[in-house]
């Protein structure tokens, strides 16, 4: 199988606190994984470490993207290779209009991808925004506001989604995509996530991959096929397997039980779908 992201023995420190410890994860092309865990488990740290944020210091271990060691690359170099991210709490950037940022994202995507025919918005950014405005239910003057400034949780998600719809990365990181979003908007966001991740295509045509972080996966109901789920606690993956089984286990017993692992997953059930090796 074609490997997209491989994390090996990653130990990450933030302000002198070790957050990730010997963390391993392997995601193949076309796969979507979900990472579940309580607050403070290290989920957002993982995302920011994959991207290479300065504060997230890799003490040991490696991150490979499409087989290439990216552990020491800058954020923009990693992104140029096809990584995209939807943040949970993006910063407010005064003076920079969303429309301007989207134009920059569009230029970057054109620069990063040689074959523009595959991309969703090779025609015209304005027309593309018009069609997205309808689907995502926003008015065009929303684009003329400063990035993430003075807007609601749902609007922040839209802004993040629009940027990713323009960039169309091969591999997407989602940090709590449904947090702060009301019920009717969850389905809209989920439908866009399915599109970004090729989930509505037949499995053989699913080229995109992703990692979704959530502390309780309500949105997962709407996302179609998820390849694997992992439970992360105290900076380590404690359990991996079939998403349904993992989520059911967490729903029933809570994360705390994972620490002592009560083997809540019935290993005889649908065993063929579950691969316990990483």
């Amino acid at each position, binding site marked *: 199988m074609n490997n997209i992201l491989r994390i090996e023995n990653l130990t990450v420190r933030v302000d002198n606190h070790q957050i990730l410890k010997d963390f391993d994860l392997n995601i193949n092309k076309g796969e979507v994984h979900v990472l579940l865990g309580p607050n403070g488990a290290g989920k957002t740290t993982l995302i920011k470490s994959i*991207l290479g*944020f*300065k*504060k997230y210091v890799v003490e040991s271990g490696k991150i490979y993207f499409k087989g290439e060691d990216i552990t020491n690359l*800058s*954020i*923009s170099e990693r*992104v*140029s290779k096809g990584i995209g*991210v939807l*943040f949970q709490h*993006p*910063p407010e*950037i*005064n*003076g*920079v*209009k969303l429309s*301007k*940022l989207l134009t*920059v*994202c569009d230029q*970057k*995507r054109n*620069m*990063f991808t040689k074959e523009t025919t595959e991309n969703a918005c090779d025609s015209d950014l304005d027309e593309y925004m018009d069609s997205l405005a309808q689907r995502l239910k926003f008015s065009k003057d929303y684009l003329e506001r*400063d990035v993430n400034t003075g807007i609601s949780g749902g609007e922040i998600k839209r802004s993040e989604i629009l*940027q990713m719809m323009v*960039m169309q990365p091969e591999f997407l990181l989602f940090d709590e995509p449904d947090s702060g979003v009301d019920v009717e908007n969850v389905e809209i966001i989920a439908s866009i996530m399915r599109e970004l991740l090729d989930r509505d295509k037949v499995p053989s045509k699913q080229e995109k991959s992703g990692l979704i972080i959530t502390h309780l996966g309500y949105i997962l109901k709407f996302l179609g096929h998820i390849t694997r789920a992992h439970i992360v606690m105290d900076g380590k993956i404690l359990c991996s397997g079939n998403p349904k089984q993992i989520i059911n286990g967490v729903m029933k017993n809570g994360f705390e039980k994972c620490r002592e692992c009560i083997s809540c997953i019935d290993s005889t059930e649908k065993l063929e779908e579950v691969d316990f090796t990483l």
Partner: protein
Amino acid sequence: MIDKDKADDDIDLNDYKIEDLKTSKFYKSEQEIPDELRNSMKKVGIEVDSDKSGIFLQSGNKPDLCVSKVQGIELMPLKEALKIYDGSDGKLNLQDYFWKAVSSDKDKFTTEAAINEITDGYFIHALAGQKTIFPLQSCLFIPPFPGLKQVVHNIIIAEPGSQLDIITGCTAHTGAKSAIHLGVSEFYAKKDAKISFTMVHNWTETTKVRPRTGIILEENAKFSNFYVVMSEVKNLQTNPSIKLIGKNASYFGQTLIYAKGESYYDIGATAHLIGEGSKAEIISRVLAVDNSHVIARGKIIGDGKDVTGHIDCSALLLSPTARVDSIPAIVAQNPEVTLTHEASVGKISDDHIEYLMSRGLTEDEAINLIVSGFLDVDTSPLPPSLAEETKKIIDIVSKSEMG
């Protein structure tokens, strides 16, 4: 602590002199302006050939050109206006407007301008109900004359219901070593009048600059003030005083400073809200690099009933040796006032840079995008033609100054 050598009291006006005014030229039309001067004017956004309601040009201390194209909007050298408007036959008496918005004994610079009888400036007068369609332009230029003292006195009067849009550029020839610019400007906006004023300064690293501006706003008068300086300067100090004496008068002032080199700026504005329901907004955006030092002040005094005022000073420091002091002050002298301020000074946050880098921008591209956004001023209070012009000027100036 403010550096002593950069502060105000080191200026001795006796070190400067006024050029021989007998040799100065007066052009009859825009076409006669020499190319060199034309190019200097372009740097402050003044294009002499473009379609404008009028143009005034002064090099040193004597007007070079004065063309007024619109009926009902008068533009002339101040000395000439003083002869015409003497109060006879029911005409305006310009003496009534002399040193009323700026007091002549405010400091040594205003005193110098007051006792000086030979230098000039412009007079702009919008008759009642008259409106400029295209902005009026004025340009004050310091010629390559070492140690020159340019002393300018301008008076601008907008009669009731009139509207004036003015672009003014002040600039110095690169050979104008150690010159000083003293500019007194007195603005009077009467009932329901509207003045929009965009001023662009482009100095050299040896120029000292002392603009002294006073603005008096009567009932329902509106004033929008845009001030842009993106060049080096030796030492610049200005603090326009705005008196909102009429009911519902309003003032909106926005200052944009790109400070570099060894430049020292002490800039501010003081608005006094006297008329019931009057309001003022003072905004400054400062970008400081190299060893520059900027003091950004803003002061609003609330006296009248139901007045509102807001000060917003933000500054970005892009060098470890630059310095910005942000000093907002709000003074309430009546319980029924609403005054607020916000100020922020600092470097660009890593969070912002990293966020933009996660969209594929390099670190430099991310910084540039944030900086250009920071300087993207809100020109919406200006009338469309002037807003467009102001944006264009800021764009031209920032491109040439910031590369």
